[in-house]
């Protein structure tokens, strides 16, 4: 059962990823991204990370994807504003060849490490366990992430507040 769910999710994940990269229209890419995010949430669930599943749906899908789609719609990209680019098979092959060693290395190391799942603790992945872990061990990164978000916010505001007065 889990395997079937996994394969379905993996299918969606991969096809979403491929859509992102290979679709010409930005909106299809965005839909691919949505698929990836949702499927990713499913994966979390499959891994018994219930809180992560929730956070992924809320933040990943609810905020990031929606924001992306909104922006695509708001700037109303027309075809002539899109970069005219033909994705040639030869280029795909070349790039695939380039990433192959990276993938190979990762898989080589992963297979060599030979992981197995540990038995699940009763409250694994729950909000409670997560919260406890977060606030006993991970306070510092948590704080800094908040500062990061603040900084990113300021940066985004600065960028988007710009007037367009490029001097020649």
């Amino acid at each position, binding site marked *: 059962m889990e395997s079937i769910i996994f394969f379905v999710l993996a299918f969606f994940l991969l096809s979403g990823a491929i859509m992102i990269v290979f679709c010409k229209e930005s909106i299809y890419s965005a839909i691919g991204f949505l698929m990836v995010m949702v499927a990713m949430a499913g994966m979390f669930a499959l891994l018994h990370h219930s809180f992560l599943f929730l956070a992924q749906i809320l933040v990943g899908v609810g905020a990031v994807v929606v924001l992306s789609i909104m922006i695509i719609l708001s700037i109303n990209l027309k075809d002539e504003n899109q970069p005219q680019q033909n994705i040639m098979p030869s280029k795909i092959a070349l790039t695939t060849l380039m990433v192959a060693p990276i993938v190979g*290395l*990762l898989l*080589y*190391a*992963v297979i*060599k*490490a030979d*992981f197995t799942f540990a038995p699940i603790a009763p409250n694994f992945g729950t909000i409670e366990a997560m919260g406890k872990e977060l606030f*006993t*061990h*991970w*306070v*510092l*990164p948590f704080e*800094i*992430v908040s*500062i*990061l978000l*603040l*900084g*990113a916010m*300021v*940066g985004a*505001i*600065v*960028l988007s507040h*710009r*007037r*367009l*007065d*490029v*001097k020649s």
Partner: protein
Amino acid sequence: MIWDLYLVMPLALIFIGALFLMLFSLVQKVELANYNLVTVAFLTLSLIIELIIFQNVEHDYLFETIFAKMFIVDKLSTLFNILFLSGAILTLLINNNYFKSRDYYNGEFFALLLFSIFGMMMLAHTNELITAFISIELASITLYVLVGYNHHSLKSSEAMLKYIILGSLAGVFFILGVALVYGVVGSTYLGDIYTYLAHHQNDEMTLLIVGMMFMMVTLLFKIGAAPFHSWVVDVYIGSPFPVTMFMATTLKIAIFSILLRLFLVDFAPIYPIISEIIKAVAILTLLIGSLLAISQTQLKGMLAASSIVHVGYMLIALYAISLGSSFAASAIIFYLISYFLSAVGAFGILSFLASDEEKRHLSFDDFKGFAHERPYMAAAMTIFMLSLAGFPSTIGFLGKFYIFMSAIEAGEILLAGFGIMIAFISIYYYFKLIALMYFYPSANPKKKFPFSISTLLIVAMALMIVWGGIGTGLIPFIAGADGLLTIASEALKTIGK
């Protein structure tokens, strides 16, 4: 507890300052100079506290009960913090005129700058990989925006675009590496990793090594080592002067703080496995950097490309660490200090000139006859160039000297020879500027030396470079060549387990 509060003060001050500026930037009436002043005030306060901490701290975990062992305070981190803070202060003070001359600076600029500094300081303090990643992201994301701050210039925007995309790409590798390390060790604490490494065989931790390599990719990217250097020249040229200066003088140092911490202590047992890659990178960096530097037509581009070369030298020492060189780490720190001083000075003069005369593009040709127009500035610039070139009697020479010393200690005479070869080539492009300044008559009349905070600081930098190159312990309290080395080695002593 009080002591802990004391230790956290510098960081807290920076954060408060950032918030303060963020909020105050909404007030339209505040003059830019005042923002600058406030920022400098926060930074200086923080710097003073750091200086005091440096005298007293040995090795400490801040708020151990709350932060676990993630926040480390030792002399090394404090030293690096001192460098970032002084870099930021110098950037702001030297560019005082520049800010006034450009209308696009406002309060947020300073807020972002403080956020960036905060990220770097955090990076120096961190004892945990995820915190390190987030700190790098914090420092970088704010820096991206700073790079594109000049919205009059397409170049600035282009630089930002490139920096964001490539920086994010590189950042992904770091977190990938962290994930792999976590997969093996089950923890991201550096201490745990070290313990794990001490008790396991090499073939059990292939994934850990792979993770380390991916983390290395990001760090190499951020310091601008070849073959991840391609952004450096474009971004340096595209950024506004203060940002270029800030980047050159702080971010690189920040990355080295984590590099040293990782490879000197925590990853030390498995570092030799990938050290050959570091060697290749070092050679490539030196070669490509010098090739780029000799063919640059813009002064800023030359300085950018030459900064790649300087990274190459430090990578030599980093490589030497893996071979057990005991001087290499202090050589890196010394080199960082020397590069810091020289780069602050060189970029400082550029931005001072850029603020002074709008029409200057600061290409090489703009420096023709500079010595006859502004003899003191030219003398200072000469000193900076000499220091960057590693000419004796400047601090840059000693920096290179220690680097080569560490390479030879590691038994890598050919590598040291190669480094010296590159140093020789660098003579050409640095002396080209000196030649331009002195060899041509000046089209403009001789100008008076403008006494301002910028110029005084530039002159002070020049003096410090010379003092750092020849200074002895004769004059107390002013660290000469000897004192700086003492500081570096003291700082390194405190990071051990």
